[in-house]
Every structure is written in C-alpha cells, then in structure tokens.
C-alpha cells in the first residue's frame, strides 16, 4: 500500500464570518502528483497557506510524515521537508538569479553569524558545491544564462520557473505548488508539468499542485481534489473528474 505523506483532518480557517477553508480532510500519497482544482475564491490558496504555516488553523490537524505540523512556524515546517511556491512569484527582486537559488539551500554552515567569522574555509567549500548545484538546477529550468541578472529583470514565466528552481534547492520531500503554470504560454506550461513529472520520478518527490489549466494538470496528476466554497466536494482519479456532474456544475455554473 502507498504511504500517506500529508494528511489534514477537519482543517478550518476563516476570515471574519467567511469560512475560507471549511472542515477539509484530505490525504496526499507519497511520490504522487496530487492536483487541487476549484473555481476562483474556493479556498485553494488559503488551504496551502494553512498547511505551510503562513496561517494558523482554527481547528483541525495537519500531519506530515506522521508528525503533527499544525501551528508550527513556516520555517519549522520547511525544515521538516515541506516547501512551497506562491501564486504570484515572491522572488528576492534585487538579488541575482543565482543568489535567489543560493539563499534557499538547506543548513548552510555560512548562514550562521558566528560561522561567518570562525569557519570561513568550511563555508567557502560548501558555497562552491552549492553554487554548482544551483547552476545545474538553473540549467534544467533553462535560466542559467540569466544567473547574474537581478530577479526583477526576468519575465513572468521565468519568475515562475525560478521559484520552482528555488524550492528544489531546499531538497524537499514534498512541494506545494500554487499554480506553477499560471501566466506562461501553453507550450511552457506543458514543459513545466513534464519537468514536475520528471522530478517526481528522479528525486522521488511528492507534489501537491493547484492549477487552473485543468487539461494539463489532468494529464500529469495521479489524483485530483476539487474544492468549492472552502470544502472538498469531490476527489477521484483525473480521468473521472471531468465526468463528475458536481464538478462540471461548479465550473460551468448552476445546471
């Protein structure tokens, strides 16, 4: 049986009177690409924000690899191997593309104030290794020729790619991707999902992905959840989602 990597139980988060995430219980299997779809405002991003620790849940539990992670600070959740990207890329604008990659690496000895002075040789060696690794990832996402450019000079699609590359530097176990293919042309969107599948296979990662380009998502996902008004209204293998009457109603308006 496949192992569950992420599980939420009765997760609830509201803003004022609005329940943005309402009693959500779901599981994500290890090494899968799990999709999350739903109309605008259905609570998908809020769900991601709650899982990644940006918001504290009001009620409910979140388990990652069998451990409770609800209520932990975002950096602690990251340390457990759960990383995320944002719907609109949140890059470090003034830093170069390479620095954006390097800043994301996990437990760098030179990232501690005392080591900066006391262990220069050690962190310098590590720095060289990590730079190689960052450049290799940049090559995969075809951004290596922009390495010295500030991130603010990239195009929208390139920013999306850099954000994906940046979380790959963190050696995560699982990634929450908030619309990885939004705002990029259809060819690039397909390629992004091909890369995701490739990464899943090569690095045994798990992906939980929000995506509005349903046709592309359904080609690559193993399992799909559908959200509406804060609740999960359906879950199924991708080929069955499009046939589900409730889902079609939600997307095409009241039938």
């Amino acid at each position, binding site marked *: 049986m496949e192992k569950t990597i992420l599980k939420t139980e009765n997760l609830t988060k509201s803003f004022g009177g609005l329940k943005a995430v309402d009693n959500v219980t779901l599981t994500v299997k290890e090494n899968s690409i799990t999709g999350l779809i739903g109309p605008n405002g259905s609570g998908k991003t809020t769900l991601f924000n709650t899982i990644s620790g940006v918001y504290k849940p009001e009620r409910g539990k979140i388990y990652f690899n069998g451990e409770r992670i609800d209520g932990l600070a975002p950096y602690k959740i990251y340390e457990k191997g759960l990383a995320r990207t944002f719907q609109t890329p949140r890059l470090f*604008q003034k830093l170069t593309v390479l620095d954006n990659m*390097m800043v994301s690496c996990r437990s760098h000895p030179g990232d501690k104030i005392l080591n900066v002075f006391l262990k220069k040789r050690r962190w310098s060696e590590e720095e060289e290794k990590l730079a190689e690794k960052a450049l290799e990832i940049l090559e995969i996402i075809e951004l290596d020729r922009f390495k010295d450019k500030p991130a603010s000079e990239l195009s929208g699609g390139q920013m999306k790619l850099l954000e994906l590359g940046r979380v790959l530097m963190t050696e995560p176990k699982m990634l929450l991707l908030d619309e990885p293919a939004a705002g990029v042309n259809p060819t690039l969107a397909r390629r992004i999902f091909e890369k995701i599948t490739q990464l899943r296979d090569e690095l045994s990662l798990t992906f939980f992905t929000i995506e509005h380009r349903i046709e592309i998502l359904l080609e690559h996902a193993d399992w799909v959840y559908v959200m509406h008004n804060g609740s999960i209204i359906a879950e199924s293998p991708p080929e069955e989602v499009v046939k589900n009457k409730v889902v079609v109603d939600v997307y095409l308006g009241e039938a």
Partner: protein
Amino acid sequence: MSEPLIYVLDMAVFVGIFAILAVSLNLEYGFTGLANFGKVAFFMVGAYTSSILANMGFPYLACITVATFAAGFVGFVASLPALKLQADYLAIVTLAFGEILRFIFKNEEWIAGGVQGITVPSAITITGVPIQTMMLIQLTIVYAALAICYFIAQRVVNSPYGRTIRAIREDELAAQVLGKDVFKYKAQMFTLGSAMAGVSGSLFSQYVRFIDPYTFEPILTFTVWMMVILGGPANNLGVILGAVFVQALERGARIAKDYLLLPVDPHNLRVMIIGILIILILMYRPQGLFRESKVKTPALEVASKWKKRS
C-alpha cells in the same frame, strides 16, 4: 602647526565617528531592511557607559569594551518587542525609544548628572605635547575602530548570512517559507548594529569630553540616515563616503562661518543644501550614489567559470 590643521583634524575625527554609525545603520537598514530611527539611543548608551566608567577611573580599553557590550545588550533587549513590528511601526517605536532613554538620562541625575551633563576625563594624558598631536592620536584610534567595524560589516554581508539578510529585506514571508528564522536574523543584526553604535558613542564621548542629554537629540539619527541615503544603502563604502560628504558640509559650514564674510549664514544654508540633495537623490537616483554591492562569495567564481563552459 596652524589653526586650519586643527579644523581638518577635527573634521576627520567626526567623519570617522559618524562613518561607524553609518556602517552600523547600513547593516540594519541597507542590508536587513530595518528602519531603525533610534540609532541615537544606542550611540547614547555607548557614550554614557563609557563616560561613567572613565569617571570611575577605568582604563579606556575597558570603557570602550563595556560600552560596546552595553549598547549591544540594550539593542538586543529593545529588539525583542520592536522587531515584531512592521517597517513603519518599527521606525516610530525606535524613534520613541531613543527619546525615552534620553529623558531618563535627563531626569535621573544620579546616573550622569542629568541636564548638567558629565565631564569625561581624558583616557590618554601625555603632558607637554601640542593639541594637534593629541588629536592625531584620537584620530588614529577612531580610524582603527572604523576599520574594524568596516571589516566586520564587509565579512557579514559577503557571506551566505549576508545573502539571507538581504533576502529578508526583499521579502520576509518568502524567506520564512524557505526556512529562515527571520526574527533571529533581524535581532542579530539589530544587536550588532547597536554594538557598533556603542563603539561610536564611546569614541565620541572621549573626543568631545563632555556630554549632556541635549547632545543626543533625534536629529543625530537623521544625520546618519542622510549619510546612508546619500551614499547608497547596502554599500558599505558608499555610506562611509556619505558620512564624509555630510560631515564635510556640516563642519565646512562652521569653518566658512568663522572665516568668510558671506551674505547668508552658511551654517543654516547647509541644512537647506542637504535637504535639496536628499530630494534630488530620492527623485533621480533612489539607490544612492553607489549601487548595492554584490554578495561576494566563492559562488561568484564558480558562476563565472560556468559561463565559459556552456
């Protein structure tokens, strides 16, 4: 030895003292994005600590060391509640903190004489040497301290740590979800910046030999901000040149007032010149005279070789 030399030496000493403050504010604001408008508070803690100890007869090395740690400690304690706030609120809170501290020194006479101020005995007494020689000794000490602070600041910003604090400045939330304990970095930089301000305060008190609460009004903080904004935030060399520039105007105006017959008071004119310059800089060159320096680590070299390979 003539009087102009005294003016030049005096200006050079002030440039050094303020350059240390500019470097320290640059660590906080330029690199980490912390709008510390209470710089003067930590400068004041350094100055008072050093002066009180000097009056108790401690050698100067002890005075400056304790002053550094005292200012760093006060900075650390102040940062714990203050750094929970967003940028604008941090500015207001730190500004108020400086004033509160100043009022404490003003009203609690037992600490350091209240409004009467406190005279600081000279640490180095060599009898029979001209004033210029004494000033040269002071100058050497100030610039040695500046060199150390500059070295520390450069080491910090050209490291993976330096890259992280810049990332925090750019986007705090993104830095958090990438595993950075943002609060820790901010508190460390605030503490380091405050400790450097303590060094500067100690040197200042030792040079002017008399301090009172009126020395530490908020305008001092704004002077340091001018240096950072003019010189170029996130460029350590830039802010030092900013300090040279602002102090040259400040002291130069005094010299001009004493020696030249002008239709306007140059000392007041200086305030206008600085104001106009800041407006021009913010409009036409918001990054300051110098651009942000790169993160210089071995990664740059690896990256430059990569270009040749592909």
